């Protein structure tokens, strides 16, 4: 498979006019996906400035907890400093550049470099170096340049931790806009108001651009073609409830749900928000994943939610059926099924998708098991659904390496309704893609 990355077609510094020329209302130039200079600018202007989701508070519940993740191309540690707020620091010693932490999570009062034991606080401050007396007088422990690089802004929206590498910019609530509704709903679904990341996580790598995952998330024309094989396997299998099935036929429902007719997809609403965010309305309409499911686990869960919030409020919480809530540029949320995906660019033609599920505090254990099943069925490297998406991303990327045809069409459903800062359209529109490119242009053509 061709993995050619075109690094030569643009000069190293890409000007705003050149960037602006890559996006038109109904089409986008292939270099947005293949060009190293464009990718580098994305890392600087988008992942280097916007609010990027880095962790959930439950991943670092105790003082001195830390996890290792990525912020753009940076290897970073998200630390819970007992003395202060959550910090996001570069996982790189300021002495010789050594990677400090090689595990995914730890509890440590300080960060000690394995090479010469330079020691840093969880806020990145240099605390000690060995054999101090051999350092010259000019070596100043208080020099901020000796501290670990630290993200200037970290914000916690109800446990969802975002970081920005820009000193200034909009508050995280302004950046999220109405996407706060789905984060609120995610938390409100827990009878005790606490959600915790549990059940493991997947990291799936595909050889394609990071934007392809987002563009696919709310593209409702693709499932009928891309997922035909899994839809078909579920349809042919019937629904034989007489047989024991420990996943309560959840795999069946998840695979079957991609089998909507175009008319059914069309009936789903698509919403595009400012800053590139988007979502689609209700998706799982029948069986164990439908909003009105009435099996013993769901009933017991609903009872717990009603006990906590009252019947009317509980019904309101469960009624929100927004699916694939894309918080551009790196987070995708499914509140109903306690799932998130985090998209991490690696190279123009390489992306890692991290997928995780959550436990709803105060809900029956069976609800958590369903979230775990959902994660396995939809986001595992062996998923019968996601495998075909990833394959398509790779086919797109391979095709785009050829420049004889330069443009990708994104005109489907262009007749959208604009109002209240939103763009709404029928379910088959490519409006989420156009909305993402509006935000992309805003970032990419902003002042240096």
């Amino acid at each position, binding site marked *: 498979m061709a993995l050619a990355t075109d690094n030569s077609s643009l000069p190293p510094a890409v000007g705003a006019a050149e960037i602006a020329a890559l996006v038109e209302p109904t089409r986008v130039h292939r270099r947005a996906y293949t060009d190293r200079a464009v990718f580098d600018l994305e890392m600087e202007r988008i992942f280097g400035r916007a609010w990027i989701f880095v962790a959930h508070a439950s991943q670092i519940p105790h003082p001195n907890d830390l996890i290792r993740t990525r912020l753009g191309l940076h290897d970073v540690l998200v630390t819970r400093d007992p003395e202060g707020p959550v910090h996001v620091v570069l996982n790189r010693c300021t002495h010789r550049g050594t990677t400090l932490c090689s595990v995914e999570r730890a509890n440590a009062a300080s960060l000690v470099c394995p090479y010469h034991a330079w020691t840093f606080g969880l806020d990145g401050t240099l605390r000690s170096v060995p054999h101090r007396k051999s350092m010259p007088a000019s070596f100043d422990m208080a020099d901020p340049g000796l501290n670990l690089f630290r993200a200037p802004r970290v914000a916690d929206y109800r446990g969802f931790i975002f970081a920005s590498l820009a000193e200034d910019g909009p508050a995280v609530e302004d950046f999220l806009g109405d996407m706060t509704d789905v984060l609120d709903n995610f938390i409100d679904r827990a009878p005790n108001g606490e959600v915790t990341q549990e059940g*493991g996580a997947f990291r799936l790598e595909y050889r394609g651009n990071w934007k392809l995952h987002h563009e696919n998330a709310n593209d409702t024309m693709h499932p009928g073609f891309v997922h035909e094989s899994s839809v078909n396997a579920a349809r042919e299998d019937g629904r034989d409830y007489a047989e024991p099935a420990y996943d309560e036929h959840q795999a069946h429902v998840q695979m079957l749900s991609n089998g909507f007719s175009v008319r059914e997809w069309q009936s789903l609403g698509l919403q595009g928000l400012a800053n590139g965010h988007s979502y689609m309305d209700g998706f799982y309409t029948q069986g164990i994943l439908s909003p009105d499911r009435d099996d013993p686990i769901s009933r017991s869960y609903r009872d717990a939610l009603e006990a906590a919030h009252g019947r009317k409020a509980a019904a309101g919480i469960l009624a929100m059926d927004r699916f694939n809530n894309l918080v551009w540029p790196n987070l995708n949320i499914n509140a109903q099924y306690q799932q998130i995906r985090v998209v991490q660019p690696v190279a123009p033609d390489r992306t890692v998708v991290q997928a995780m599920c959550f436990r709803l505090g105060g809900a029956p254990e069976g609800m958590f098991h369903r979230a775990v099943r959902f994660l396995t069925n939809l986001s595992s490297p062996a998923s019968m659904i996601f495998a075909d998406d990833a394959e398509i991303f790779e086919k797109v990327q391979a095709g785009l390496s050829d420049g004889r045809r330069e443009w990708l069409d994104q005109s489907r459903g262009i007749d959208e309704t604009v109002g209240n800062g939103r763009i709404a359209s029928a379910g088959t529109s490519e409006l989420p893609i156009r909305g993402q490119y509006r935000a992309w242009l805003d970032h990419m053509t902003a002042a240096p």
Partner: protein
Amino acid sequence: MTDAVDRKAVDRGAVEAFLYREARLLDDHRFEDWLALFADDGLYWIPAQPGQTDRFGAASIVHEDRTVLRMRVRRLSHPRAWSLTPQPRSSHLLGNIDVAPAAGGEIEAVASLQVAIYRDGDRTRYDGRQTVRLRPNGGDFEIALKRIDLIDCDGTLGVLPVPI
């Protein structure tokens, strides 16, 4: 724990022959026949964490009983399963096979597993330990559990397109 006497009581040759046949069915794309080796309550499990013991409270790369596995096998023959087109070819190698009696009259066979998968110009290697619980069934065996612990089960992985 088992002792040497217990191990001698197990027909090691028959167990090995079964394991080789099972691997061969996968390499030969005879997935329906492969599925038929599983007991009605049989389980195919590829954990996502080293030493994983919880099948329900922690996600797995694959965690399927026959009802789900049957759909997986059905999908394998669909002409437009894109991650299976062109059809992947696999080569299984089993080694260091250890056979011991287990509870309930079952037999546990633990082996080192190497699987190479080739598709569309790419070759991928999967390495790990395979643990199979076999149940005697009319002169043959049926699979009560096939568990594969990949050495990189919690690492960054590409698509695993076929059963291994």
